[in-house]
């Protein structure tokens, strides 16, 4: 093994460890709920990754201020020392009750946030009543216009010094009066969350990344194995034998390489699919893999065919045939070892290629499950490219680049055969 191959092997090992570790790092509940928008309501929206800085998420601890037989008043203090404002604030309640929520800002202004029955957990940015009451409370002080109601979030207004929306640093005191048995929780969401931030539904992008990575790799691995198996079968048949079947197979391989793959794959995948729950297409992964491998097998099978023809004309093989060896024996003993060696090399070339192709097909949303293609399409639809959320769009590519590099260093592939 040359040093280069060792580096390649180490890279692939690291990648495998990364895949396993990241899969284990995410609880299964989150993975299952990735496509369930409701599940992610309590998370900050459009947060940055933690490693880009930003304010962290803080859970405030309640302090009982005053209580009567029915009502209790809790105080929560929050010191804000960052230049950036928090992303959102959530109030997590234990049961439906009557709540009065207000906030005392560092400059002494008391902003009334909410006073009504509360049936479920709320966040400041997603509740219209809160948006209006915060807006009203600070409208005169800041000279806010109606346009600001639409363009600024309540959290942003709450944490601003003046109409220029600079951040007001200092201690914020949240006061909650309620007829509840247990104190509600207040979570101040920072501008950063998780390893890859969150999207505009509040979904943890890292969860989506891991889910699509596992699915893409699974599909790619089995598709590659199928292509190699089918390619060996077709290549050996069309290369070794000289009968009607082999000429049909040869012709079929020529046709396959001339087909426009993408349009055919898109419509046929849909024909095979079933409408799943929600807006999702359910495609049987086995059928999908078989379709992709048949459409892509042409090139590899042709290479195997040429190798078989070359091997067959070698002296030791013709000698073996003239001694009465059967076709099966010759293929197994003389041709298969050579061809298999090439297949293993080709596998290291094909696997990253198929990962790339599956992410291309995912662009049309018809690949079974979540994959890197659909992951990026979603990012593009949510404006990640022009909104500067580059970590979101580029992360799958970096993973693919790493995988590709590992395979590239591990085993060189002789391309000369694919040309003839």
């Amino acid at each position, binding site marked *: 093994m040359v040093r280069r191959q060792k580096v390649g092997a180490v890279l692939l090992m690291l990648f495998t460890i990364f895949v396993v570790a990241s899969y284990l790092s995410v609880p299964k509940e989150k993975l299952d709920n990735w496509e369930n928008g409701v599940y992610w309501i309590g998370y900050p929206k459009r947060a940055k990754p933690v490693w880009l800085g930003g304010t962290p998420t803080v859970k405030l601890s309640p302090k009982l201020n005053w209580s009567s037989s029915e009502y209790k008043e809790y105080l929560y203090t929050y010191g804000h020392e960052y230049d950036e404002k928090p992303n959102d604030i959530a109030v997590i309640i234990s049961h439906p009750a009557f709540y009065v929520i207000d906030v005392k800002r560092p400059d002494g202004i008391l902003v009334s946030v909410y006073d009504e029955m509360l049936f479920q957990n709320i966040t400041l940015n997603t509740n219209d009543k809160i948006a209006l009451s915060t807006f009203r409370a600070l409208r005169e002080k800041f000279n806010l216009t109606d346009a600001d109601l639409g363009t600024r979030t309540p959290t942003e207004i709450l944490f601003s010094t003046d109409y220029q929306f600079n951040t007001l640093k200092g201690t914020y005191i949240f006061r909650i009066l309620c007829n509840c048995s247990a104190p509600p929780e207040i979570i101040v969401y920072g501008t950063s969350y998780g390893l890859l931030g969150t999207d505009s539904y509040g979904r943890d992008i890292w969860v989506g990344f891991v889910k699509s990575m596992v699915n893409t790799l699974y599909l790619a691995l089995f598709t590659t194995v199928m292509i190699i198996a089918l390619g060996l079968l077709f290549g050996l048949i069309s290369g070794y034998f000289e009968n009607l079947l082999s000429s049909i197979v040869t*012709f079929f391989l*020529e*046709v396959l*390489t*001339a*087909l*426009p*793959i*993408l*349009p*055919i794959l*898109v*419509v*046929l995948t*849909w*024909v095979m699919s079933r*409408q799943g729950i929600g*807006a999702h*297409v359910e495609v049987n992964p086995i059928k999908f893999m078989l379709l992709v491998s048949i459409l892509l097998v042409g090139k590899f099978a042709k290479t195997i065919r040429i190798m078989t023809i070359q091997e067959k004309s070698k002296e030791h093989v013709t000698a073996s045939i003239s001694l009465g060896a059967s076709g099966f024996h010759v293929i197994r003993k003389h041709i298969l070892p050579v061809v298999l060696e090439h297949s293993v090399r080709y596998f290291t*070339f094909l*696997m*990253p*290629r198929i*990962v*790339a*192709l599956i*992410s*291309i097909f995912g*662009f*049309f*949303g*018809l690949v079974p499950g979540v994959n*890197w*293609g659909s992951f*990026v399409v979603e990012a593009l639809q949510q404006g990640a*490219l*022009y909104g*500067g959320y*580059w970590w979101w*769009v*580029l992360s*799958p*590519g970096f993973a*693919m*680049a790493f*995988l*590709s*590099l590992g*395979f*590239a*260093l591990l085993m*060189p*592939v002789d*391309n*000369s055969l694919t*040309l003839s």
Partner: protein
Amino acid sequence: MRIAKRALGKIITIYLTVMIILILTAGVTANHLLKEKAKDLAEYGIGMKNPALYEQIKREAAKEGVEPWKYIYEHLLLEKYGLAKNPFIMGIQLLLNKGEPLKTQIDKRKERELSLFRATLVTLTVMLSSMALIVAFGVLFGMKLANHSRLLEIVEGITRFFNGLPSWWVGVLLIVIFAVKLNILPTGGLFTPKLLHGVAYLFDLIKHLVLPIMTLFLVFIWEFMSIVARETQKEMYQPYIQTERAKGVPERIIYRKHILRNIGIVVSSFTAQKFMEMFTDYLIIDYLFGLMGLGLVLKNSFVREIIPNVGINVTFNFYLFFATTLIIATISFAASLLLELLKGIIDPRVS
């Protein structure tokens, strides 16, 4: 200089088979779509709006011993559109534009947007200019690389590296760098929404095409370079080249007159092969950069929309599907023909 008759026959047969497969694909898809529609009609459409009619259909279906939706599919939909049940015949009917009512209504604005002529023109322009750049750079630098085996190994490594990268990702990376961060090139589209004439118009167009062409170039150049280098290496130590060297013929002329001509066949086959492979990548690049080429047409040929409160609406526009696939197939066909012709010119022994 003639094309070999056998090769020509083979290419035509392959092209015809490709056509048949495309027709079959369209037929199968349209058939599936009609069946889904029939099921939908049976469950919600007729079943809810006109119960009397539905009862009658049920009776008729029971007489024939089929399920109600199948009856609707066979007697209402197929007969109404005048389509055959056989997917292949249906495909041909669709190709000949028989199922007119099946054709989804493309509104006027969309139709202008999806001009096939312009789509083909854009596709050919982008693909041919990337290919021309790739061939020019590949041959030029590939021949130089043949003498530097260390560098060649690195280029081969890069080839493998790009092989595992999806082309859209390279495009996204270029957009992030040149359009978003540096802001020197447009992110997509073909023109700035401004009226320009003459040179300014052309300049604007070129500026919009730089990133897509660069993406395709970056994805495909490495493999091309290493192939040219490997082929040159094989040729370089042939006895006839040594003889030429011994005669004192300048290297430049040896390269141009002998090596280039001899690697010509391999390089031109490789070019044709890559050109066909490039279509898959181009369709995505086209969609990513919003070039309004065949990628957009393909995207519009099969639309799966999510309509709130109604559900999912699938429209299969076989007119656009045929247009995309047949244009791609025809271009590939033309490329193969051209290749055979070129082979004959480069090496008369072939034909």
